[in-house]
């Protein structure tokens, strides 16, 4: 079993990501990398998901591969996405996420390969900037919503070279300060 979990944001789902992940080119990439399960958190965009999932099933059937890749969906879990992340962790899979900082922080806590897809439609949004900076430090992979296949193809190799987040040392500082220390330092509490 090898699971790919896709999260698109619960309140304002990133529908282009749902469409992209269920497109034939992405499905081919999943099959090639040996993924067996594709789980999509569609949030409030159920109609789009159902429609695209049906098309994806038809595509898989046509190419006689519908037994190899199973597609499932979920709307929203008030308890968070712990279970899904654990599933990915255990099956050595991949998480594909929108580039919201909350989702990034949550997924990286599980030390699992993460591909983030910035929403290019959002104006004055810094998702792209954050994704570029995070990719440069090898914390995650950056995916393009128009073509996800390269990111999916890179995911297995990325597992080996991904950097730990949050980093234990911050590069230029020899001594890293924890936020608790910073708080004390600001007050002048030295004990």
């Amino acid at each position, binding site marked *: 079993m090898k699971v790919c979990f896709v999260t698109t944001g619960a309140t304002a789902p990133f529908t282009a990501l749902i469409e992209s992940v269920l497109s034939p080119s992405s499905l081919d990439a999943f099959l090639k990398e040996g993924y067996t399960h594709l789980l999509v958190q569609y949030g409030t965009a159920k109609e789009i998901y159902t429609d695209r999932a049906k098309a994806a099933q038809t595509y898989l059937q046509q190419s006689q591969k519908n037994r190899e890749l199973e597609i499932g969906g979920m709307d929203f879990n008030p308890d968070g996405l712990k279970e899904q992340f654990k599933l990915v962790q255990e099956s050595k899979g991949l998480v594909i996420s929108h580039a919201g*900082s909350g989702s990034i922080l949550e997924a990286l806590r599980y030390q699992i390969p993460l591909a983030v897809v910035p929403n290019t439609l959002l104006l004055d949004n810094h998702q792209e900037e*954050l994704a570029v900076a995070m990719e440069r430090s090898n914390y995650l992979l950056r995916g393009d919503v128009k073509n996800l296949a390269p990111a999916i193809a890179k995911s297995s190799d990325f597992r080996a070279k991904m950097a730990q987040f949050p980093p234990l040392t911050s590069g230029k500082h020899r001594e890293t300060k924890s936020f608790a220390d910073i708080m004390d330092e600001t007050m002048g509490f030295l004990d």
Partner: protein
Amino acid sequence: MPPPPPLSFTLALLTTLLVVTSLRLLAILPRHPFRPPPPRKRPLASRILIVLGSGGHTHEMFRLLRELDTRKWTHRTYVVSSGDAFSAQWVRRFEGELEGRVRDAERRRGKGDGEDEDEDGGRGDVAAVGKNGHVNVNGNAKIGGNGGGEKPKEAEAEAEVGKGRGRGGQERPYCIGPEHYDIANIPRARHIHQSLLTTPLTCLRTLFSAFHPLLSAPSPLPTPPHLPHTPYERAATDLPALILTNGPATAVLVVLAALTLRFFDYRGAERRGLCRTIYVESFARVKTLSLSGRCLVWVVDRFLVQWEELWGVGRGRGEFCGVLV
């Protein structure tokens, strides 16, 4: 006697006020790069005020707070924008985790019971917290109501432990449970799609309501007036020692309110070194500051950024200590 010329008098008055205000602002506003204040002894109890915002800000704030020591920050006031049930829910979960951590420590210490007998006092501390969710230091005012089944002997023992700590001041008790935190709701500074014309009005309303959680935290268990207050209760009703924010619009107004208190040295806010402020720019901001960040970079005591690109932003005010979330 002829009345003084009104115009020159008003001008003189205004000039004086302007000079006095500027001098005072110069005195209380932080110097360019942060320099640690002279070391001082940590008081027995301190209150911290934490400004929460919408989803992303709240998420990052609780990541920052993951190592929060409840022995040092004995009362937490969480400021939440009205209508934000999500953040309030997160506060309760976080405080629950803080409690759980102490109970785990208690269990671990309990296991080593038979092996070492030296650390008796220390073990007593945690156990006492486990029962009441609260330990008082002087042992003269009982606030954390005992469970029905608890024997008075145990309560006495707890008070003894408390006394020892009060004198020595070495081992501080964990301050967890509902009497050690509160959630303050203040009206939103700006609603989504709100017109720019009315924004100053709602901001003003937020500014006024921001004074409330700054001045005092509500005490859910009032001590009878004949009993002296514990240091913990005093800290809860005092000004906060530290204010933490990470960028919601509300934060700008809470910081301004805190600055006002320091300007007038209200209840010794400036003299006693209270109401110090830390701003942490969102981890999502790599190259540019957020609007709140740009407003607060000259005002807060410490301005922390999480990406090297922003290091030294605001004429050297931005400090980079690595990723903090």
